[in-house]
């Protein structure tokens, strides 16, 4: 049998550097820390949110048939300040402007809509293009000043003339004051009319048109806070069933709820939990089992969860264990003490599916990110680094040496930079194009074969 060169995380994808956005210098301003990355439904637009409350949207260039290299590049399309720092005077608390999540609405007309949220407030933004303007008013000069009506001797009909493209973002709805705790997730329903927002203890259902009311659908706050044992860490609507959603917890469980069953979905329809061998239990067990992200597959048949050390794929038809488990960085198990001391053990990594649900991706430390091919069972570790930034050069796979003799080109666990974390990644819904966020830079990689 020929020995296959490790050619990529799946289906012989060869990942190449395409673009990198952001400052080069190592001194990272807090506001520039990227906090969310999301492609829209067509993949034409790519949105990022940062700790400074800003959203930047990139648009893919139309494919240039003359230059046959790769798919179009992503260039800045629009940028706006989504959230500002606020102050809750009643509780003397500052409300961070950091954008926790962005979710796109499917496109219904010429404009694009997205939901962006910080810890407390969700906003619906409309992004629209203006490429013509009316000219030839009778009562106004071109610069807007009003003409003296006595000088008007003829009438003309104003006409639209082309102008330089202007992209405008305007807030259309503000959904506020519904969350006592910090919002960690928003998810748009497949009915395209409603969406959910989840904080540590509650999940609310909103109608996109109605801002002064929301419906509480999950409430896990105990009467006595001392009895609190777990919090909600993520929530998502099923991609096809508008009555179904899931939420994950800090104890490693996922609950699937059906809104048809009752108004308050405190009782789950399904509980997904992998049984744990009690003899393996340690101080760290609960912390590392906390689920930091949950994502349905595009098909809706599976869901993926990310805990500190692994990615698990669950079949919605089987509650008692995941069908697949992939180790992201198992070598960290023997470093848990120091990872607890430097708080890294609490890092919340996200995960994502490719368009065909055959490959999953998640981030790690040292600006490494990992991909797992569900069919071939091959996995790959790649690095987001400016050192590899020659377009069309295939990225070299990385390998971490857990212990023992380090081979050439391997990196030892102790040399990993735990400040360089890749928490947010996104996969184009149709193409092999991925967006990977390091602390303050956004990398775009493409399949060489594109």
């Amino acid at each position, binding site marked *: 049998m020929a020995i296959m060169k490790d050619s990529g995380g799946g289906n012989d994808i060869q990942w190449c550097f395409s673009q990198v956005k952001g400052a080069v210098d190592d001194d990272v301003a807090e506001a*520039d820390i990227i906090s969310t990355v999301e492609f829209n439904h067509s993949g034409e637009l790519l949105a990022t949110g940062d700790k400074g409350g800003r959203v930047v949207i990139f648009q893919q260039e139309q494919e240039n048939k003359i230059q046959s290299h790769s798919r179009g590049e992503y260039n800045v399309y629009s940028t706006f*300040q989504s959230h500002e720092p606020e102050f809750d005077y009643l509780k*003397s608390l500052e409300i961070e*402007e950091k954008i926790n999540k962005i979710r796109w609405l499917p496109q219904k007309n010429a404009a694009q809509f997205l939901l962006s949220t910080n810890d407390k407030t969700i906003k619906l933004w409309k992004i629209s293009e203006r490429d013509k303007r009316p000219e030839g008013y009778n009562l106004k000069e071109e610069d807007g000043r009003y003409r003296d009506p006595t000088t008007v001797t003829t009438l003309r009909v104003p006409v639209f003339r082309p102008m330089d493209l202007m992209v405008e973002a305007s807030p259309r709805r503000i959904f506020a004051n519904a969350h006592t705790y910090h919002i960690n997730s928003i998810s748009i329903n497949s009915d395209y009319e409603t969406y959910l927002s989840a904080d540590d203890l509650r999940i609310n259902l909103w109608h996109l048109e109605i801002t002064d009311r929301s419906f509480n659908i999950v409430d896990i706050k105990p009467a006595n806070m001392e009895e609190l044992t777990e919090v909600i860490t993520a929530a998502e609507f099923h991609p096809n069933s508008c009555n179904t959603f899931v939420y994950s917890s800090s104890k490693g469980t996922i609950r699937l709820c059906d809104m048809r069953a009752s108004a308050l979905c405190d009782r789950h329809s399904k509980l997904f939990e992998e049984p744990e061998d009690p003899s393996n239990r340690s101080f*760290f067990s609960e912390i590392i089992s906390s689920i930091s992200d949950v994502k349905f597959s595009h098909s809706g048949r599976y869901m993926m969860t990310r805990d500190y050390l692994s990615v698990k794929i669950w079949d919605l038809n089987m509650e008692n264990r995941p069908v697949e488990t992939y180790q992201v960085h198992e070598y960290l198990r023997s*470093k848990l*003490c120091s990872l607890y001391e430097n708080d890294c053990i609490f890092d919340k990594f996200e995960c994502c599916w490719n368009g065909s649900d055959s490959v999953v991706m998640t981030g790690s430390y040292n600006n490494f990110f990992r991909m797992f091919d569900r069919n071939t069972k091959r996995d790959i570790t790649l690095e987001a680094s400016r050192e590899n930034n020659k377009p069309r050069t295939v990225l070299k796979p990385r390998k971490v040496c857990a212990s023992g003799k380090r081979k050439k080109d391997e990196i030892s666990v102790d040399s990993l930079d735990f400040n360089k974390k890749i928490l947010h990644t996104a996969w184009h819904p149709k193409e092999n194009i991925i967006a990977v966020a390091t602390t303050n830079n956004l990398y775009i990689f493409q399949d060489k074969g594109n």
Partner: protein
Amino acid sequence: EDTQEKEGILPERAEEAKLRAKYPSLGQKPGGSDFLMKTLQQGQKYFDSGDYSMAKAKMKNKQLPSTGPDKNLVTGDHIPTPQGLPQRKSSLITSKLVG
């Protein structure tokens, strides 16, 4: 019993032993419960004129009301003063991703 053996085999247990050696006051609670309370606590407490006046008045002889069930919450070890507050930031600068 093979628990001792397990400590050698299970890297997690070895790490736990390391942690407990460093922080003997860690207690018997599983890791995560203190973090839960910290997670829910809604951000930094800022300047509160009521707290400030109380502290300034130095209520030495009066017993302050007991802290009750909230005593596990991290509230900081001093009352903020206007001079000590970090400046409120505003990010009207364009993101460097645009540059």
